[in-house]
């Protein structure tokens, strides 16, 4: 039985079980302070309190395919202002991750793509390689667009190199942890447990 079938009539239950900090969703009292506190508030088609109500109403496709939670900048303003102390930032991250892992998140959503590139960059060697991360971002929409993006940011990039805050030599490897084998085994194990728990296991 697929995850979708199992929870067809209980999206709230699915969120409570599979989404990071999802067990808090039913505590929302719909005051909307989160929406008013968000720096990117007007970019959300459905602000957090609306997403919470949609979850309760069983609107699975609409919630998981929404790009709203991808607008979260992780500023934590909603968390500190929520009168019921819901960890809203984490629930938004959890929803985004869940939609992404199920393949329901909007294709080409820029924060989704950036976040994926970032994670893949950091687990490659255990530390972020800022140069290869920036280049991967520039070139994510193809070679021509990549050259355009790189030229656009050329002055900034050269300024950073000159200020010793960006190293062209990072292309050849760059920073990383020494215990590569242990680090990778740890991440793989953590991913295995998570996939088993949340129904992503193949």
């Amino acid at each position, binding site marked *: 039985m697929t995850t979708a079938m199992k929870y067809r009539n209980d999206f709230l239950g699915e969120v409570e079980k599979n989404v990071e900090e999802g067990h808090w969703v039913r505590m929302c009292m719909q005051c909307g302070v989160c929406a008013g506190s968000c720096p990117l508030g007007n970019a959300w088609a459905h602000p957090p309190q609306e997403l919470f109500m949609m979850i309760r109403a069983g609107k699975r496709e609409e919630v998981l395919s929404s790009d709203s939670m991808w607008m979260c*900048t992780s500023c934590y303003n909603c968390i500190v202002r929520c009168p019921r102390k819901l960890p809203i930032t984490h629930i938004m991250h959890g929803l985004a991750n869940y939609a992404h892992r199920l393949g329901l998140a909007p294709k080409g959503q820029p924060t989704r*793509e950036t976040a994926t590139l970032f994670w893949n960059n*950091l*687990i490659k060697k255990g530390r972020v390689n800022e140069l290869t991360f920036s280049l991967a971002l520039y070139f994510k929409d193809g070679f021509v667009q990549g050259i355009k993006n790189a030229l656009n940011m050329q002055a*900034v990039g050269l300024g950073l190199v000159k200020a010793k805050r960006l190293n062209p030599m990072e292309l050849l490897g760059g920073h990383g*942890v020494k*215990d590569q084998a*242990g680090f990778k085994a*740890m991440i793989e194990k953590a991913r295995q447990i998570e996939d088993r728990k949340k129904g992503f296991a193949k």
Partner: protein
Amino acid sequence: MAKKEYAFYPGCSSQSKASASNYLTSVNAMCDKLDVTITEIPDWNCCGASIGYAEGGELPRLALSARNFALAETHLPGKEMVATCAACWLAQREVKERLDGSEQLLKETNEALAAAGLKYQGTTPVRHMVEVLIEDLGYDALKQPVVKPLEGIKFAGYVGCQTNRPFGIAGESFENPVYLDKLVETVGGEAVPYDQKVTCCGGALAFSEPDKSQKQIRDIVESAYDHGAEMIVTPCPLCQANVEIYQSEINKKQGTKFSMPVLYYSQLMTIAYGGSAKEAGLDGQLIKATRLEEIAKK
């Protein structure tokens, strides 16, 4: 003053030739002057930052920070961890709270750590460098080494998000924290009133949603000008990078003439304590902090 020692978690952006390498340079100089010893945690890894969640999920992210704790517990037992990066500090604190509050997550995280021959024990608290300064040393002790007060320079204290929320610095308000202003005054500068001090710079969305983030950055810089500031000072590497780097982009697109230096508190302190421009990492500024360079030369 008793010598203070910490297990140091510098984070990816502070590494040599990375975007906040000048932060690390100035932190080292500042700690020297204050007789604070920071010993790098051997083989630390990235914390996942605030954008790691989408692909990283929950448990792999918990494992990242737990590995840093486990390494500190193994190699630097009994020492508190100190982070200079807002996101590193926040991630470590969040993970500690999560693991100390859930036996299930603790068990699963340790199962993952075992694959690297490590174990999280939960014995190491994590602090931000700002906490070390104002709580462990205190403003009086921070004032003592001042030999070149930053007299006459007006600073906008830009605290940003992640050193302020959701944990923040004890005793400070989320809406109007004052510790950064007090640090500025401690080293002889003037902290101007500043209504954008806890506004989000867009964080990692500066990459993915440049227009939305640059609107935030414009507000942050514009308000600093409006209140008569000559420089912005911040405790966060991503705030520093975003607010400094994108000024030229905003100028290009919107016809503004922004040229506001953005500094770390540790750079101000290094200069006030008599350090050179190089020791303060001023050579790392894209927008030169000329008046600080002049003070350093005096």
